């Protein structure tokens, strides 16, 4: 496309001789447009990074962190404290456990659902199914948690009402939200319920780029439905799967805030307190800003390490990666 006749200015830039006056006259407005976004990123994304210094300083919220004295142990006091805090270790464990379960149970679901939708023979029904499956993505976690409560509550939840009727025992209860292990299961299930349908979009898009000739060739070779899926569809999806898997691994230590906050209750806080909730409780509610900044920094730092690690691993195995 750059072969088309270029305005003279571009040619000057390409040859390295810039006529600055001309350049600014022509493209200066672009910089004007960028002023607000640059202010936004500088103020709301990069300035907070200066406040990360808090993690190495004494806990003081009145002065800006660069004027505060260094914390003990060469500034690493809060990191040491965090790792000696049983609550933090538990939050760390919960975060990893819930994310791993999400990965193992939640990651394959959109793929399976996309394969199903792709095999669906009736076009209008397919469109309707998609519309319905995308719906939960648009509900907030607060709404989802109230829906879940009506569905899963011990006494008047829909499932337990049915369970009581069927078992004939009014005391019979499945403690979906009130017993720790059951709660973890419900947490994972609700995550899948909310996001799996939405996750299919990306795979369905990738499926459209698989050449129909491959399917025809497979059919000629006598491949049935399953062999076609295995030998044509899944290999076609592989690059997409790898990219999404890298992103997922990069957030293995990341923690959502809305989801555990909305779904947890006092009976299960031992398994539901993840790092983001810990930071909220210690920092915003408890005023321990240095400690919670340190925890947040640790979390984000490890997140970036995981992301690049996973990316490197993917490249090692001959995939394209993301960065």
């Amino acid at each position, binding site marked *: 496309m750059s072969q088309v006749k270029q305005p003279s200015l571009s040619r000057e830039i390409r040859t390295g001789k810039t006529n600055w006056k001309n350049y600014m006259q022509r493209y200066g407005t672009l910089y004007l447009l960028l002023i607000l976004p640059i202010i936004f990123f500088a103020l709301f994304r990069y300035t907070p990074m200066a406040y990360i210094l808090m993690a190495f300083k004494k806990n003081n919220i009145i002065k800006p962190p660069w004027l505060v004295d260094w914390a003990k142990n060469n500034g690493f006091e809060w990191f040491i404290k965090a790792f000696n805090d049983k609550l933090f270790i538990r939050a760390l464990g919960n975060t990893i456990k819930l994310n791993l379960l999400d990965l193992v149970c939640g990651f394959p679901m959109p793929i399976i659902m996309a394969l199903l939708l792709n095999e669906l023979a009736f076009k209008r029904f397919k469109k309707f199914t998609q519309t319905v499956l995308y719906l939960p993505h648009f509900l*907030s976690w*607060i709404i989802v948690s109230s829906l879940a409560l009506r*569905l899963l509550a011990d006494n008047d939840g829909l499932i337990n009402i049915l369970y009581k009727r069927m078992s004939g025992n009014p005391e019979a209860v499945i403690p979906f939200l009130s017993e720790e292990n059951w709660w973890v299961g419900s947490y994972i299930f609700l995550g899948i319920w909310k996001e799996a349908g939405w996750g299919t979009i990306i795979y369905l*898009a990738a499926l459209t780029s698989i050449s129909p000739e491959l399917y025809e060739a497979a059919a000629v070779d006598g491949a049935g439905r399953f062999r076609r899926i295995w030998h044509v569809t899944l290999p076609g999806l592989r690059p997409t799967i790898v990219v999404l898997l890298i992103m997922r691994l990069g957030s293995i230590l990341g923690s959502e805030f809305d989801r555990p906050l909305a779904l947890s209750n006092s009976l299960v806080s031992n398994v539901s307190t993840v790092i983001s909730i810990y930071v909220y409780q210690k920092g915003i509610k408890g005023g321990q800003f240095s400690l919670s900044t340190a925890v947040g920094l640790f979390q984000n730092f490890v997140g970036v390490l995981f992301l690049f690690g996973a990316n490197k691993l993917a490249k090692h195995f001959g995939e394209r990666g993301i960065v």
Partner: protein
Amino acid sequence: MIKSKSTKAGDIIIMIICLFLIFICLVPLLNVLARSLSSTQYLIRNEVLLWPKGWNLDAYATVLGKEKYVHSLWYTALLTIGCTLLSLFMTVICAYPLTYDNLKGGKVLNVLIIFTMYFSAGTIPHYLLLNNLGMLETVWCLVLPGCLSVYNMIIMRSSFFGIPMSLREAAEIDGAGPIRTLVRIYLPLSKPVLATLALFYAVGRWNGFSDALLYLKKRDDLYPIQLYLYNILQNSTSGEVAAQEGFSTPGLSETLKMATVMFATVPILIVYPWLQRYFVAGVTIGAVKG
């Protein structure tokens, strides 16, 4: 193509599985809808499943009579519209200059912007910044920190990239400056993506509550609808807010809560199916080229 018997059977099995998935998706909503339309006596006896018993709209009428709730609904609607317009504006003015590959400094800026997608300072530094800016307890802490999403910006930019460069060059030769090119050529051609991003931003704001929970402690008149709901649902056992608002009357509270949930859900349910065609394309652009 002639299908064998086993293929037909397979089609039917797949359709049944899909019907099952649809059922799972809709059951929780139908359940809550049924409860919100039922009379309390049936609710207390646990007789309402997926179909309302003792039809009535009392709960909805009561909820609409609650000044605080209606205020919260209106306020959230206005906030959502305002934030969406601002975000779209910011997204466009950020994405458009970055599509000029001969823009000096554009590459560096691009890297700096993408970097914020992978590494963020964390909750507390953001909180402290807003504290020092004096934005805590004001409406600005709900508007400004989230007014530009890198992910959405990338979607916008990819869509701009998809517009043939020859159009821009033709406009430049005709003497149109960058802004005129943007307004006359790029924006009209990007309507579907703009609609998608508007949906993403609007849904994010309508559904968001964690920023309000972190940054607003005293100003409950600034609570968006979701935080309002969170307080009602959480405090149902212990109570203050629930008691004040009449949500703790046994039995009645149940249908009321369900009606409030429905009110917060319905606006989105009305909007998103119409935009489905567009957001599918939007997500795909962002993912493939991001």
